[in-house]
């Protein structure tokens, strides 16, 4: 039985080897405009993004819509090709030793739209069994696996296996999507706004399910959401993106204590708080993010930043450790003593306190 069921891609580098290393990922979408399509311009959806995903952790990615978090997710799962940069999965480089097919044996994704991500013409069990069958599992075994997984995500197979997607609720459909993503036994699951469309009570149930499954199957998650509370609940580390760039990354509690980048601070300030003592002094974000077709020069946030100085519009900030902690990095001129920003010294001292 065991050899008919797809085995997960074995661990190669040991626990110290990050599961994913993303180096300078770039993805620009060209859109042609003008009379003969000559005036081509590019949406810089993801521009020079680097980060790692450690084995067994949950990395939360947050940011406003259009910041590149979904494109990053699609890059990680190989659905969107990169223009430049390196994607290394457990020590193997995509396009080198690692083919897309290999990547798909280790990485799966759960999409936001629970309905659009299920084929309306296939029954639930056929949808879940599709992946294993494509990988050589026999029809009967694949169906047994599908029933097993349905049970595991809380849907009784006797009742749900033969149903079509339109007969299920949003929460049930998302459980099916989770079961489908687990069916080929991946090591990394990308959850792209996977609970955002659900009711709050259903969302909580699905989040708990995800937490249980992670422990049970030894998974690693990349969890994308615009809901900071949810991200805080499920993530070990958080990555904040703005206009296709990473502005801050670090362990969740450290970022909660020290919001080093003004954008992170503004994003958190916009989050409604239940605690009247937890007042914010940070001005909330005004207006929409600038057009990613023609992003601002220098620090991309300078057009909306309360602390922006002329130098912010010319020089691009590099990621600096926050309070000397290399786990917590942020890209802001105020964290760089050599940047020339007038507030730099004060800000560094403030964060070190």
């Amino acid at each position, binding site marked *: 039985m065991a050899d008919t069921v797809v085995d997960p891609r074995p661990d190669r580098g040991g626990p110290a080897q990050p599961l994913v290393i993303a180096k300078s990922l770039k993805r620009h979408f060209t859109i042609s405009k003008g009379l003969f399509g000559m005036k081509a311009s590019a949406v810089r959806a993801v521009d020079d993004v680097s980060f790692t995903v450690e084995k067994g952790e949950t990395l939360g990615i947050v940011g406003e819509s259009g910041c590149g978090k979904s494109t990053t997710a699609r890059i990680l799962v190989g659905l969107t090709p990169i223009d430049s940069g390196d994607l290394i999965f457990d020590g193997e480089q995509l396009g080198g030793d690692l083919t897309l097919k290999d990547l798909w044996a280790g990485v799966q994704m759960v999409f936001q739209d629970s309905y659009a991500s299920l084929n309306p013409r*296939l029954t639930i069990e056929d949808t879940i069994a599709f992946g294993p069958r494509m990988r050589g599992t026999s029809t009967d075994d694949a169906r047994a696996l599908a029933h097993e997984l349905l049970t595991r995500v809380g849907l009784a197979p006797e009742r749900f296996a033969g149903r079509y997607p339109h007969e299920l609720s949003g929460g049930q459909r998302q459980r099916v999507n989770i079961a489908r993503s687990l069916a080929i036994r991946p090591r990394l699951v990308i959850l792209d706004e996977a609970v955002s469309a659900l009711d709050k009570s259903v969302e909580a149930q699905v989040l708990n399910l995800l937490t249980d499954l992670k422990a049970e199957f030894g998974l690693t998650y990349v969890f994308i959401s615009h809901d900071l509370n949810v991200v805080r609940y499920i993530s070990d580390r958080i990555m904040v993106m703005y206009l296709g760039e990473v502005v801050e990354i670090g362990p969740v509690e450290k970022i909660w204590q020290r919001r080093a980048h003004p954008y992170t601070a503004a994003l958190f300030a916009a989050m409604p708080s239940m605690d009247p003592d937890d007042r914010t002094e940070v001005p909330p974000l005004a207006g929409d993010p600038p057009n990613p077709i023609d992003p601002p020069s220098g620090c991309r946030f300078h057009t909306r930043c309360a602390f922006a100085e002329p130098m912010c519009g010319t020089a691009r900030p590099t990621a600096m450790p926050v309070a000397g902690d290399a786990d917590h990095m942020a890209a802001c001129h105020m964290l760089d003593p050599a940047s020339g920003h007038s507030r730099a010294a004060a800000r560094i001292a403030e964060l070190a306190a």
Partner: protein
Amino acid sequence: MASIGTSIAASGPPKAVVRSKGYWSGVGARLRRDPVALVFGTFLFAIIGAAIFAPYLGLQDPYAGSMVSRLKPVGTPGHLLGTDELGRDMLARLIYGGRLTLLLGLLPVLFAFMIGTVLGVLAGFVGGLVNAVIMRTVDVFFAFPSVLLAIAISAALGAGIINSIVSLTLVFIPPITRVAESVTASVRNLEYVDAARISGASAFTVVRVHVLGNVVSPIFVYATSLTSVSMILAAGLSFLGLGVKPPEAEWGLMLNTLRSAIYINPLIAALPGVMIFITSLCLNLLSDSLRTAMNIKD
């Protein structure tokens, strides 16, 4: 870490599951509740059935004429629907005529449906240069009104059954390709296609299982809406002398050869057209019903 593979053995064989009704059985149930579909479906069924089984219906020879009994009126003993300009039995010729007219009308749509679906799905799924080549060619054919294109190709190829089918197929490939391309392009961007791709299936399997199943029904409904036009055009080609040649029984050709009889026996002369009209009406109404039953919006 729990292993799913090992726990299957413990859980035994899959339990019996309640299977929901599939999409097509739902469509069938809705069609059976539609009175228009029932009535005109029965009508069309009768016309097609009579055409297929014409030799077994005890009809007179549709080719045997008689110089003495030409253009006999409807109701003549022995000739229920009268006789044509060469004294041949109209009832037999009308029923036999359905064979060629329906064949010439329906086959091109069937062929165009198959070819157009392949081209459109290819263009919609692959995109890029393939899409550009296919769709720009389609645009050029679209620049011709369908009647004109059918007549132009038939006129160039010359009269004949095969040429008539070829030219009508060419006429209907572009519109079907266009519909197939746009439906495919919209399905391609749905997340279940992405999910199928990352499950490791080949592009061909993704198209076969996840794209085709969801695009074929709107394309099919669109194709059925073309059958009436196709049949009218097919009969029209014969009417112009570009399709079937005498002495074959074919509604368009019969209409043509009976034209001179409108001064003598107008009812007889109009009968082949009545057949075309009724059949085309049935095809259009059924296509509308099918569209409603399949819940397809434009």
